[in-house]
C-alpha cells in the first residue's frame, strides 16, 4: 500500500484528518511514505510533532503504535522480553520423563515472548504508524538499538532468529533537540523541522480547533501571539497555547482582545514570570 500518492494528496488527506500541513510538511510526509524511510521531526514544544504522527495514522487508516522514550528505557521495554515467570512455570510443570532439549526448545518460543512496541510494529500485518516519541530523552545506547530497526526494519532475537517486517511501518521520531542525536540515526531518517506557523496558517488552525471563536478575535489573537513570539522570551507561546488561549477567551465571553483583555489572560500563554513582565512592558499593556 502506498501511504500518500503525491505531496498534494498528503495535504488534502492530512487536512481531512484535522491536521493543516504546510507545503514542506506535506512533501516530507509523502517522501517518508514513498521512500519507506523514518521521519525525524524536530521543533519547539507544542507545534504538533506528535500530532503529525497521529494525523498520518488517521488519514491512512493505519493503527498507531507508540513508544514513549524516557531516560533509562532499555531493550526489555522497547523491543521484547522473555516471559520469565511463565517459563519457570513451564519448567516446573514439565514431566520428569521429558528431555531437557525439548523443554529448552519449548520455553524459547512465541508463546513466551512479550513483544514491546518496536517488535510489535514490525510484526504487524496491517498498516502501522510507529511513533517513537521524544527520542532525545533516551540514553545513547538506545539509539544503537534503533539503528537496526530503522535501517532494515528487522529485529534479531538470538533464540528465534531474525524477524523482518512483512510490511514496513511509517515511522515518525520526534525530538525536542534537548540532545543532539547521533549522525548515524540522523543519516537514516528524513528530517523535518516544524516551527511556529505564520499568522494565516495559525488562524486556520485555531479556528479549526475552536470553531465557535469569532473571526475578529481570532485575527487579534494570532497577531498578539505573533508579537509575543517576536519578543525574546524564555518560552515563546506555541500553537497548543494559542488554542488554549482561544478556548479561554471563548469561556470568558471576551469579544474584543484589547490591552486589558490580553493582560488579564496572559497567564494562559506565558509560563515564566519574567516573560510576563517583559510582555507587559513591550506591549504597553498597563
Amino acid at each position, binding site marked *: 500500500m502506498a501511504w500518500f500518492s503525491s505531496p498534494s494528496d498528503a495535504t488534502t488527506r492530512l487536512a481531512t484528518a484535522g491536521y493543516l500541513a504546510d507545503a514542506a510538511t506535506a*512533501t516530507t510526509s509523502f517522501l517518508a511514505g514513498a521512500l519507506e524511510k523514518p521521519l525525524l521531526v524536530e521543533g519547539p514544544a507544542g507545534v504538533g510533532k506528535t500530532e503529525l504522527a497521529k494525523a498520518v495514522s488517521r488519514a491512512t487508516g493505519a493503527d498507531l503504535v507508540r513508544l514513549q522514550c524516557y531516560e533509562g528505557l532499555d531493550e526489555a521495554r522497547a523491543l521484547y522480553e522473555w516471559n520469565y515467570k511463565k517459563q519457570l512455570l513451564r519448567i516446573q510443570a514439565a514431566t520428569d520423563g521429558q528431555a531437557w532439549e525439548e523443554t529448552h526448545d519449548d520455553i524459547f518460543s512465541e508463546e513466551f515472548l512479550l513483544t514491546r512496541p518496536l517488535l510489535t510494529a514490525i510484526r504487524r500485518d496491517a498498516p502501522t504508524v510507529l511513533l517513537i516519541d521524544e527520542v532525545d530523552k533516551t540514553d545513547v545506547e538506545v539509539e544503537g538499538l534503533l539503528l537496526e530497526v530503522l535501517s532494515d526494519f528487522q529485529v534479531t532475537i538470538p533464540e528465534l532468529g531474525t524477524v523482518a517486517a512483512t510490511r514496513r511501518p511509517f515511522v515518525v521520531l520526534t525530538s525536542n533537540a534537548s540532545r543532539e542525536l547521533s549522525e548515524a540515526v540522523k543519516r537514516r531518517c528524513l528530517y523535518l523541522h516544524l516551527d511556529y506557523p505564520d499568522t494565516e496558517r495559525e488562524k486556520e488552525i485555531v479556528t479549526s480547533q475552536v470553531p465557535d471563536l469569532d473571526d475578529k478575535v481570532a485575527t487579534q489573537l494570532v497577531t498578539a501571539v505573533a508579537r509575543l513570539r517576536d519578543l525574546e522570551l524564555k518560552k515563546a507561546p506555541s500553537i497548543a497555547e494559542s488554542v488554549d488561549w482561544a478556548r479561554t477567551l471563548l469561556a470568558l465571553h471576551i469579544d474584543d482582545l484589547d490591552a486589558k483583555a490580553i493582560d488579564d489572560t496572559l497567564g494562559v500563554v506565558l509560563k515564566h514570570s519574567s516573560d510576563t513582565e517583559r510582555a507587559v512592558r513591550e506591549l504597553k499593556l498597563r
Partner: protein
Amino acid sequence: MTLLDRHIAFLEALRAAGMPVSLSEDLDAVAALGLVGWGQRQQVHDTYAATLVKRQSQRETFDELFEIYFPRMVGEGFAAAAEPEGSRPARPADGPADLAAFTEELADALEADDLERLRQLASEAVGRFGSMPGRGPGMSSWSAYTTLRRLSTDELTLKLIEGLRRGGWTEEQAGRTAAKRVGSYQQMVEADARRRIAEEKGPDQIARITVRPTIDRLDFLSARRADLEALRREIYPLARRLATRLTQEKHARRRGPIDMRRTVRASISNGGVPLDVRLRPKRPHRTELVVLCDVSGSVANFASFTLMLVFALREQFGKVRAFTFVDDVHEVTDYFTPGSDMVDTMTRLADATSHAARFGRTNYGRAFGRFVEEHPDALGPKSSLLILGDARSNYSDLSLPTLRRMAASARHAWWLNPEARRNWDTGDSAASDYAAVVPMVECRNLTQLTEFVHDIL
C-alpha cells in the same frame, strides 16, 4: 551543465560550507527527487531539505546555497523573454522619472503586502538600478547596495508608515510592520543581486564568498547586530542542552566504591549472603566560579555571552561571582537574578561598563591589581578563576606577579581568548606572556564556548 552535474556541484558546495552530507544522503535525495519530480521549485527545495539538512542551525546556509544553485529564474525571467525582440530598449531606463514611477509602484506593492509582486519588483529594481556595467563580457556585475541607495529605503519606510496609519493602524503597529516589510524587501533585492552575479560568474565562486558560517560557528568578534540577537536567542536553549548532557553524563558515573557497612547490613536478610551490593553514592563536585571579564570595545560581546551562559547554568555551579573590568574592577554578580529576563540583563550589563572604567583604556595590569586590592576574599582554595579577554593591554604594565598570585590562590585558572590563535601576540596582545601563567584557550564561537563550559563542569 547537466542536472546531475548541478546536483553534485550543489552537494559539494554544502559540504564546503561545513554540512556533513554523506553519500547515502546524496542517494536518498536523488531517489526522492525521482518521486517528487522537478516540476515545482518549492517541492524540490523541500525535498532537498528533508534529505540533506539534519540540523536546524544549518538551514539558513542551505537556503542561501539553494537560491544560488537553483535560482528562481534566469536573467530577466520568463516575462521578459516572452516579449518580442525590440519592444524593450537595449538598456533599461533608469532616469529620475523612471525612478519616481518605480518607487510609486513599489510603495503600492509594499502597502498591499503582495509578496509575489514584491519579488518581481526586487528583480526589476536590481536589473534597472543596480547594474554595474563592465568592460567586457563576464566583467559586469550587480549591486544590491546601489539599488537600495537609489530607492532610498528610509523614505519608503516613512511613506509606508503614513499609508498604514491612514488605513487605521496605530503608530507603533505601523512602524513595526513597515520596518519588517521593507526589511524583507531589502533581503529580496540582495538575494536577486546574488542570483544575477551567480549567473554571471558561476555559482561555485559565489557560494564560496557569500555564504556565512552557521550561527554556532560564527566568530564573536565578527558578529553583526542581527547576529548578536540570534546568538542571544541561542543561549537559553544551549544552556538547557548542556545541562541535560551533563546530568546524563553524571548519571552514567553515579556509582561509587562499595559501601561495606551497608552491604553487610543488607546481607543479613539473605542469611549473610551479600546478594545486594550497596555502593557509596558519588558526591557531585560543584565548582565555585569567579569570572573576570574584559568589557572594553569589541570583546564586550564575547564577555556578556559567556556570562549569560555561565549564569544560565548556575545550578551546576556551587557559586558564581562575576566581575567586569576595563581599567578598574566592578562586581556584576547581582545583575544576574535567577529567572530574570535576558535582554534586560544584557542592557544593564552594557550600562555598567562605565563603572569598570576609570580612564577608559584597557589596562589588564591595573585591573588585576585593583581586583586583589578590593576583593581579596573572592579567590580561595575552593574557587576557580576564569578570565575572559583578548589580552590587549595597550602596552601597559602586565602585572604578571599579581596574576601569578591570583592563579596560585585559586583551585584552577583558565583564560578564554576570543581571538584566533594566529592573532595572538600581534600588536599590543600579550597573550603568550599571560598564557605562561594561566592556561589560555581559544574561544571564538558558541561551539568552542559550549565545549569549554562542558569540560570545566
